[in-house]
């Protein structure tokens, strides 16, 4: 009987653990938002994080966008040629980059870079008692560590993605004009003509949500890191994996919200 029940018990235990994790992440995210609205604020920390999260992620996001835009142009050209629709390359590249690939790939690349570094930094602070030291020095770790990082990611990710969108479209333009013999002026006209404000805005809203996810996951897993180097390593992995999955899941939900009508 026991051996028969064991798989069900394992599934039940796993489900409860998962629900408990989701609950504690939701509470943590709620606390982060609540602390954002109440003083004291640490503007210097916020500015420092703007540089670390935003400025230093620019090369990663820019290069990702450039190559993705180029590959997208090649794919759409090859696919479009099957039913003589090669001319849609500029508009599909622009819409694809701005609506989906810019925010999602930008978010995933930043998740890899930023969620990992936040989790490792805060996790190390936890195991070396620096978080306890902050508390004894009358400084709330949530206000001093989490809020500036989350706020900086929410603000910088849309900016990064906007720059990435432009670079991605430029990647498509370069491949389109240099490799696929599109007329340069016609390519740009088609790109601008078919792109709507809603496409751009939806992508930037997604980016902001992804920024919140990335920084919150990094901080949550860092704050809850286990002991020693292994604990920090696990926290870092968990931060990147959970941020990536949440980005993809929330992307689907946001796409339903923006475009299902």
């Amino acid at each position: 009987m026991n051996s028969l029940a064991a798989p069900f018990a394992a599934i039940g235990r796993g489900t409860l653990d998962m629900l408990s994790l989701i609950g504690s992440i939701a509470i943590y995210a709620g606390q982060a938002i609540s602390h954002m609205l109440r003083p004291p604020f640490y503007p210097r920390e916020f500015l420092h994080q703007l540089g670390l999260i935003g400025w230093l992620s620019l090369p990663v996001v820019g290069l990702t966008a450039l190559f993705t835009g180029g590959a997208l142009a090649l794919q759409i050209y090859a696919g479009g040629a099957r039913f003589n629709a090669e001319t849609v390359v500029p508009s599909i590249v622009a819409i694809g980059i701005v609506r989906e690939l810019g925010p999602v790939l930008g978010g995933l690349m930043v998740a890899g870079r930023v969620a990992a570094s936040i989790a490792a930094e805060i996790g190390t602070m936890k195991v070396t008692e620096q978080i306890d030291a902050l508390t004894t020095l009358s400084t709330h770790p949530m206000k001093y560590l989490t809020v500036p990082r989350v706020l900086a990611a929410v603000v910088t990710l849309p900016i990064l993605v906007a720059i990435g969108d432009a670079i991605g479209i430029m990647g498509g333009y370069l491949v389109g004009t240099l490799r696929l013999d599109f007329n340069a002026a016609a390519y740009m006209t088609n790109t601008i003509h078919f792109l709507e404000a809603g496409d751009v805005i939806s992508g930037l809203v997604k980016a902001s949500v992804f920024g919140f996810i990335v920084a919150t996951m990094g901080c949550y897993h860092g704050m809850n890191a286990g002991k020693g180097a292994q604990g920090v390593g696990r926290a870092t992995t968990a931060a990147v994996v959970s941020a990536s999955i949440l980005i993809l899941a929330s992307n689907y939900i946001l796409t339903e919200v923006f475009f299902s009508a």
Partner: protein
Amino acid sequence: MIEMQAIHKSFGPKQVLRGVDLTVNSGESMVIIGGSGTGKSVTIKCILGLIRPDSGRILLDGKDVEEEDRDAFLARFGMLFQGGALFDSLPVWQNVAFRLLRGSLKRPKAEAREIAIEKLRRVGLTPDVADQFPAELSGGMQKRVGLARAIAAEPQVIFFDEPTTGLDPIMAGVINDLIREIVVEMGATAMTITHDMSSVRAIADKVAMLHNGKIRWTGPVADMDTCGDPYVDQFINGRAEGPIEAVR
């Protein structure tokens, strides 16, 4: 005065504190001794509110610490952590003046730096250390910076968590002397946890021995050697044989 009354704390199935009762009078230097894993750090963290006890009360000057304003409460404490717990991203002087650069005790930056340098000098460090980063300092220097940070805002109560762990005997002696001098000079209440007997003899007015989650014995340091308690006797003489199991 700090009073701990029947403090219990468990982590999962593991009962760490099983009813700790301890009183530390104002201006007194209390040292808690006990083997590794007996709950010494948990005891201090309960007082500071870093860990919430499962039951029991902690009173500071007769008032329940749970009911006090958190910031005002913490402003009365300083703590030296076992590993220093210095913030790697900040230069030494900003570590020392951390509390003076933000919050209710905020001072102008130049004044905070001046106080930091003065505190560094008090713990035997030269002003050129002020602009270095913690990673550039030796273990002994990091402890001194941690000590300077603990006393920077002139706290009424100072906690020392294993202040000499990881230091060579000479540096351990220097830190012990510094702690004793500073505590006497400031008139602060001190609570130290250690298993280094040279620290105990240098720092303590009173000693409490924690064993199996309870205070086993407490009394003046002068009575420690003659208290007659077999647990205290085994511990202070470092014997493998005795009522305390060597393998825990």
